[in-house]
């Protein structure tokens, strides 16, 4: 369905509700409606048009229009378009109607808006603090424009209400924020009776750094370096999403060679990430031979990254308008050889682990994520694809050189650790194949297209498929063409609640394994 048809269909159905509609950047349809009609409209998008709520965020536009603005972003995946329903919340009236009872995904977004903007979602089923912990006094809303970036409010000690599970023999296990392994901080509260877990509540946002506030007012170039550092191991996915948004606003097409190079690095990042996850899953069940083999492969992937750009985490590869410089020329032959070796070794190791029945017993039926729950929570990436949902932004919202390349999106229906592992194995092979195609078919030409200064109050989405799943960024410029608002929604934000569901019913020692099979980023969630 084209944007035009989609718009006509919506206006036909709700002639009185939508009072402005605007199509931007080829696939973004911005609609405006009154706050009281939002529930009905979002129900229609979600249930009748089968759209997913992929992002919900606010912007403090009081200086522009005297109100806060809420943006409900729905993805129409068949046609690859976005419907962005916006509504104005008057500055004197800080409440808005919660849609989370019908669109469950909305719950965490609304909590986030509550913490950062001080807007109250009326009718929210569980309105507790998310971003701000108890050490943050009441009445401080960092994403309001009148809150100074450097302001550090005084101390406070408010309680955080964990969900209590009561009953004979039920007890709680608190874990974290500092964990036993070398991982990021987060607090997990397990309610268990003996070994089985009834409920897991994850208290996150320990690494909340205020990235969205930090980017406000920054030049697009400086903000790029923040985008690269949203989540360390997703440098390309995040910087690419940001670049795409800015490039859309600037209205430029990047050189074809840069499109290919971007795919090369994005797939290298995916390969590295998946190999690390495979190693982690094996190590967590004490299968050290396989763990070390996968780690060896991962080491080779890092070596490839170092040869290409001198940075193991692919920093400073992207650039607004293309890629920084020539990275690939002259290295093609060696890259192809390395890819062949990696593919061969990966095939061998996968063959060995698939025939290890003890290992398979351990990962089968562990941490099952139901398709229905995955769909309701908008689980993304390999976790969703292991639960039978075949969403992949590289296919649905094609970007860079992906439309010109052939690849499959592996889908399994089991929803367990085994399925997630199988998805990651298949995707690793697909990544190798994609990198090979890029190297073989890459056209010559420029590496980047210089960007003109951006116009005022322009907005656009940037969408990529990171190793962890769909990654959605939204940028709005201010009157000087700098950043007015930068909303980042990484795949980890969607998958954390899914992880908590998948853990229930399993035993405590399975948690690290299930957690590893999801491999979520705390930094990407906490921002």
């Amino acid at each position, binding site marked *: 369905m084209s944007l035009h048809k989609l718009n006509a269909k919506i206006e036909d159905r709700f002639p009185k509700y939508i009072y402005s509609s605007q199509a931007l950047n080829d696939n973004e349809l911005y609609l405006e409606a009154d706050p009281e009609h939002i529930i009905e409209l979002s129900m229609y998008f979600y249930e009748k048009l089968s759209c997913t709520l992929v992002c919900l965020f606010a912007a403090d536009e009081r200086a522009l229009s005297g109100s806060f603005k809420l943006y409900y972003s729905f993805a129409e995946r068949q046609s690859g378009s976005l419907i962005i329903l916006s509504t104005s919340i008057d500055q004197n009236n800080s409440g808005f109607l919660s849609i989370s009872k019908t669109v469950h995904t909305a719950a965490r977004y609304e909590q986030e808006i509550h913490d950062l903007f001080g807007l109250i979602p009326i009718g929210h089923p569980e309105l507790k603090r998310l971003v701000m912990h108890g050490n943050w006094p009441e009445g401080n809303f960092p994403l309001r424009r009148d*809150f100074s*970036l450097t302001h550090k*409010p005084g101390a406070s000690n408010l309680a955080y209400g964990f969900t209590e599970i009561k009953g004979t023999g039920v007890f709680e296990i608190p874990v974290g924020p500092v964990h036993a392994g070398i991982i990021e901080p987060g607090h997990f509260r397990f309610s268990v009776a003996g070994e089985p877990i009834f409920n897991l509540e994850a208290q996150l946002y320990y690494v909340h750094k205020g990235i969205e506030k930090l980017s406000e007012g920054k030049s697009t170039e400086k903000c790029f*370096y923040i985008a690269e550092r*949203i989540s*360390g191991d997703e440098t390309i996915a995040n910087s690419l999403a940001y670049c795409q948004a800015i490039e859309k606003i600037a209205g430029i097409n990047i050189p074809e060679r840069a499109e290919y190079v971007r795919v090369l690095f994005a797939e290298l990042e995916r390969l590295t990430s998946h190999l690390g996850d495979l190693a982690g899953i094996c190590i967590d069940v004490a299968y050290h031979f396989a763990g070390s083999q996968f780690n060896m492969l991962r080491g080779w992937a890092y070596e490839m990254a170092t040869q290409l750009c001198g940075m*193991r985490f692919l920093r400073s590869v992207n650039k607004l308008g293309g890629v920084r410089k020539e990275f690939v020329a002259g290295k093609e032959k060696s890259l192809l050889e390395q890819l062949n070796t990696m593919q061969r070794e990966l095939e061998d*190791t996968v063959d060995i682990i698939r025939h290890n029945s003890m290992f398979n017993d351990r990962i089968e039926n562990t941490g099952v994520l139901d398709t229905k729950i995955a769909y309701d929570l908008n689980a993304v990436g390999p976790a969703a694809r292991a639960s039978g949902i075949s969403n992949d932004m590289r296919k649905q919202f094609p970007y860079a050189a992906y439309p010109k390349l052939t690849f499959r999106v592996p889908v399994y229906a089991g929803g367990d650790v085994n399925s997630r592992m199988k998805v990651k194995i298949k995707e690793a092979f697909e990544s190798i194949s994609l990198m090979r195609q890029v190297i073989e078919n890459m056209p010559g030409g420029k590496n980047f297209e210089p960007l003109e200064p951006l116009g005022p109050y322009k907005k656009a989405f940037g969408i990529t498929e990171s190793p962890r799943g769909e990654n959605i960024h939204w940028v709005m410029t201010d009157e000087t063409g700098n950043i007015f608002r930068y909303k980042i929604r990484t795949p980890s934000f969607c998958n954390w609640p899914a992880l908590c569901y998948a853990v229930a019913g399993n035993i405590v020692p399975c948690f690290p394994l299930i957690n590893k099979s999801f491999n979520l980023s705390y930094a990407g969630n906490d921002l």
Partner: protein
Amino acid sequence: MFKVLKKILKYPRLTQDYPNKPITKGMFIGKPKIDHEKCTLCEKCVKRCPSEAISKGSSDHTIHIDCYKCIFCTLCDEACPEGAITMTDNIELAEKKVTDLSNELLESELQAKIKKILGRSLAIREVDSGSCNGCDYEINALNNPFNDIERLGINFVASPRHADMLLVTGCATRNMESALLKTYEATPDPKLVVAVGACACSGGIFQDSYATQNGIDIILPVDVYIPGCPPPPQAILYGILSALSRIG
């Protein structure tokens, strides 16, 4: 079983012999260097540096690069019209903090004590106080077959109570502050604190935010700083070893 043995024998040793063997030249992008003779003080690099690592000295009117704030993005190299700034491949940048003589004395005493108690072994507890997870992955990589830090008698432990050294990454976010302090307090004396990465050294790109600190030394006493964004495993190893005075 045969296949497993075959694979183990195929790649018997991957471990790189760092620090005995130096890092391959030109492998990594390291510290930026200024050629002051070429520099015309146009301040283009100052304006474009994303982490405010470059500044013009108020007294001597020369351009300085603060290695601890630097995120090694190579933008200054690109921005300089005179080609006065170049990126080197030097990543062995960790430095001990010595502010005055009394500190130095204390430190040598501490070093002697550590050596006496620990011999050549060291137990490390890692704490992420708000990083992007890049540094954490690099610390993790110290345990992989390529770096295998245990060959040097150094291992990572699960609890701060078992640790001699805290390896802290990230910019000490407001939400992590008390956990970081508690971890520090739970670590028995004598202990060493090493700040890993630009965020832990200075706040890096996340400096001056409502939720972060400009470096963990605002909260904890730090012994060694390891710049980088993120520092590669070899750079972290160099820092750990220099904290033990086993290198440099």
